[in-house]
């Protein structure tokens, strides 16, 4: 971890008191700033909260939001909620896997894209949905998936 990053991390931690109840908010905030929870970051967080690194890892690995390895710049998330499923989410996932050349959970080697699925993001009325970073695209079809990544043909 570079100096600058370490400074940012310490700055984030300075807003907290150092109690274990703050672990999940800290992990979320650190991940929001760094994209993932690096080993160095986990070490610093553990020290700050007076818990072990094992504890931090154990807890972080329980929650599906947390990433322990770097993610791509563009996070492509396919909803596999019930409404999306019966309106064809499996085919949307298949099409996206093909376009990106990635399987669910994978990140491209150039750290450009990460393909993930989520249990539901609550846009069921627009099913099936796909999200790229913060933008939700509803009523998807395999053809529309291709249009979302025009430069990847």
């Amino acid at each position, binding site marked *: 971890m570079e100096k600058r990053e370490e400074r940012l991390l310490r700055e984030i931690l300075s807003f907290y008191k150092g109690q274990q109840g703050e672990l999940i908010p800290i992990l979320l905030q650190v991940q929001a700033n760094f994209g993932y929870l690096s080993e160095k970051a986990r070490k610093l967080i553990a020290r700050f909260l007076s818990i*072990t690194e094992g504890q931090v890892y*154990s807890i972080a690995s329980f929650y599906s939001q947390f990433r322990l390895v770097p993610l791509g710049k563009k996070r492509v998330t396919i909803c596999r909620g019930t409404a999306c499923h019966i309106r064809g989410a499996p085919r949307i996932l298949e099409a996206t896997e093909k376009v990106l050349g990635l399987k669910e959970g994978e990140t491209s080697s150039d750290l450009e894209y990460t393909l993930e699925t989520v249990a539901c993001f609550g846009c069921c009325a627009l099913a099936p949905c796909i999200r790229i970073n913060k933008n939700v695209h509803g009523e998807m079809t395999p053809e529309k998936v291709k249009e979302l990544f025009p430069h990847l043909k």
Partner: protein
Amino acid sequence: MEKIALTIDGLNIVADKGMTVLETALRNGIYIPHLCYHPDLKPSGVCRLCLVEVGDEQLVTSCRMKVEQGMVIKTKSPEVDKVRRAIVELLIADHHTDCRNCPSSGQCELQRIMASLHISVKRMRPLKWAREELPRDTSNPFFDYDPNKCVLCGICVQTCEVVQGTSSLYFVGRGYGTKVAFFANKSRCESCRQCVARCPVGALIPKTVR
């Protein structure tokens, strides 16, 4: 000490107040299958094998149930047997069954439970066997961890916490992917080997034994 009178499998038993049903049964020579219970640890109630029938067909984990005056407990009943057998079979289908080459053979709680319920691998339900062989964790200098044999009873994790005050064994991951992992930083592990000694199956094996 206040005494509590209760009935287990038709026998009239007197227990000390504050004891659990499982402790009372074991002390009176009544075997209730169990994997995650250890007398020195807090009962976690996760293996679900010690379920017994209390009163009107309600199933409860006997390791966490305190004795009460006039309780009527059945440790065996068609209902209990059905559920318990299914749980054991689920565990077996998910576990290496090459007992002959396992250093824990003969001292294995899972073997003991299978024998007590007369379960044989050949006559089990047609469950799907675990297909994936998971790699062993050999990062600890004193013992190896074999996730293919682990039943995730949590005894090692709790023991490490209680015996050492601080822990180097943790649960990681979630759901079916849960494992026990060893965090070796700064040699927190004092090689007390209590975790290995208390493992009810052959998941934690000393390095010297091969």
